[in-house]
């Protein structure tokens, strides 16, 4: 029973980990850039969701759509003004441009929103579904369902729409895509916007149980890397598997080890996977 509870918890939280990490893997897949600032867009999404709740009275689950839209637009701007310029630079320059971006966003948020921890109050924040001895947290369940929906939407977009196909073509060969009449720059802009927008969306859906503050990104950045590496850098399907893996590992490892060591367990799995299967658990899938 305890195991089942842990498994259910792991799956629910894993869905959330997946949706916040999909953006990171998408950006890497299309542009080959590891975005260290990705988690800052999660923070921005949380703030947008929070403000939508505080000013407009919108539930964060609805506010998440606004968070997506706002951060999507911001992402397009960031791609156009910054990331675009280092696409051909050495990886070190790419990584450290995003590190600079991380510092800028975090401190701009500190200036703009103040250092306060902010939390929304929802009617269901302490609700749970009860199945026998099994508790299913309503905020977790809601976040999980929203994650599933957004994952499906992304899958449809990537596989069924012209944009999605054009984007994948750009990812494989930007030059060839240009020759076929695809505006590769525009595709990258959309990809980056979509990537950070999804992360922001994920940030807003966890608001019912998570607190937002300007440095909240730091709590997620390593976790997000773990998710995408487990799943395979650049693989969207992989991020979903990776998210689930991280959620379940965290949840189950707590039964055998002190909770304090949950990240140790996670990192050891992370290193092992990198060493043995650098293409991730879902190698090859895109």
């Amino acid at each position, binding site marked *: 029973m305890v195991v089942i509870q842990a498994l259910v918890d792991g799956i629910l939280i894993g869905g959330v980990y997946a949706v916040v990490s999909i953006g990171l893997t998408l950006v*890497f897949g299309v542009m080959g850039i*590891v975005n260290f600032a990705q988690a800052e867009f999660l923070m921005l999404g949380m703030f947008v969701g929070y403000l939508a709740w505080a000013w407009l009275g919108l539930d964060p689950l609805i506010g998440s759509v606004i968070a997506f839209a706002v951060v999507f637009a911001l992402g397009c701007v960031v791609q156009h003004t*910054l990331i675009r*310029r*280092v696409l051909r*630079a*050495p*990886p*070190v*320059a790419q*990584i*450290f*441009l995003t*590190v*600079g*971006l*991380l*510092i*800028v966003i*975090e*401190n*701009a*948020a*500190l*200036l703009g929103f103040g*250092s306060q921890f902010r939390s929304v109050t929802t009617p269901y924040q302490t609700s749970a579904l009860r199945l026998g001895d099994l508790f299913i947290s309503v905020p977790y369940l809601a976040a999980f369902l929203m994650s599933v929906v957004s994952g499906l939407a992304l899958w449809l977009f990537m596989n069924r729409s012209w944009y999605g196909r054009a984007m994948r073509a750009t990812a494989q060969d930007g030059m060839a895509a240009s020759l076929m009449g695809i505006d590769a720059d525009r595709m990258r802009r959309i990809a980056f916007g979509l990537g950070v927008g999804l992360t922001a969306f994920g940030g807003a859906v966890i608001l019912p149980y998570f607190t937002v503050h*300007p440095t909240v990104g730091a709590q997620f950045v*390593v976790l997000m*890397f*773990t998710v995408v*590496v487990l799943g395979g*850098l650049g693989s969207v399907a992989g991020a979903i598997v990776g998210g689930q893996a991280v959620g379940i590992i965290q949840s189950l490892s707590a039964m055998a080890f*002190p909770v*304090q*060591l949950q*990240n*140790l367990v996670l*990192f*050891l799995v*992370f*290193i*092992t996977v*990198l*060493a043995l299967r*650098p293409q991730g658990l879902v190698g090859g899938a895109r």
Partner: protein
Amino acid sequence: MRPSLVLAAVALTVAALLPLTLDPAGYLIRVLTVTLLFAAMSQAWNIVGGLANQMSLGHAAFFGIGAYTSTILLVNYGLSPWIGMLAGAALGAAFAALVSVPTMGLRGHYFALATLAFGEVMRVIANSWPSLTGGPAGISVPFAPDSLLMLQFKSTLPYYYLMLAALVLVTAVFVVTKAGALGYRLRAVKENPDAAEVVGVDTARVKTIAAVMSGGIMAALGTAYAQFTFFFDPETVFGLGPISIRVALIAILGGIGTAAGPIVGAFVIIPLEELANSWLSAGTAGLSQLVYGILLMLIILVQPRGLVAPVEALAARWRTRRAR
């Protein structure tokens, strides 16, 4: 005499004489001391990151091992930090060899992320093992009277010279390595590992040697840091932001793979951080860091190969012209 040698001699003379004009326990000398330390750390990183082109984001692991080894030996057994430094360097080197095994085949982003995880592993271990490390509460170097043997001084001046000596030493190691057979092999591996192997370079071996050197030196610098600050906790010495990313950033901003890069980078970054902090932080929280971040991005956008790259290019052109 080669112009770079002349330049180095002048810089060293200035560095040796400069403190005589400063308050020996003052703020400026402290900033300079930290700058020299970070230049040395970044130079140690440069052996792996610059020569072997393996972008490590986990160098805090070695740094922390050095800081903890010497401090634990000092606190528990009263051993001189000099001995602790040797022990720490040995442990750091050994850990570097260990890290090399699973990361050997990884390149680029994958290597960076794997090393990042190793750094975090060390942080978690230091945090969860209080009986050895003092845990999250940190560990203090016991107060002692001024003594070279115990590497402890009330004034900052001796630390300044300690760090300067460290930087000179690490830079010498870097220059000799780069100019030697190992340097050629590392550059070959960096440019094309397959071709290097086929013409007889044991890529795994040279990468491991570089990692071991770098890790050992980084650990020794960890001891120097511990003796200088007297107190540290796991986040300070094993931290991703404060150490791992910072040393890589310094080298990258200065110009990786060059002896001058980390030094130039450190003398830009550390004082920049200080200035941003002292000018702006009293005003509005976050503004100084914001400005710092914007400057970082600007430098990377304008000069992605590092600040010394234009100078290097000029020098290279001059050399080839002369060679003709």
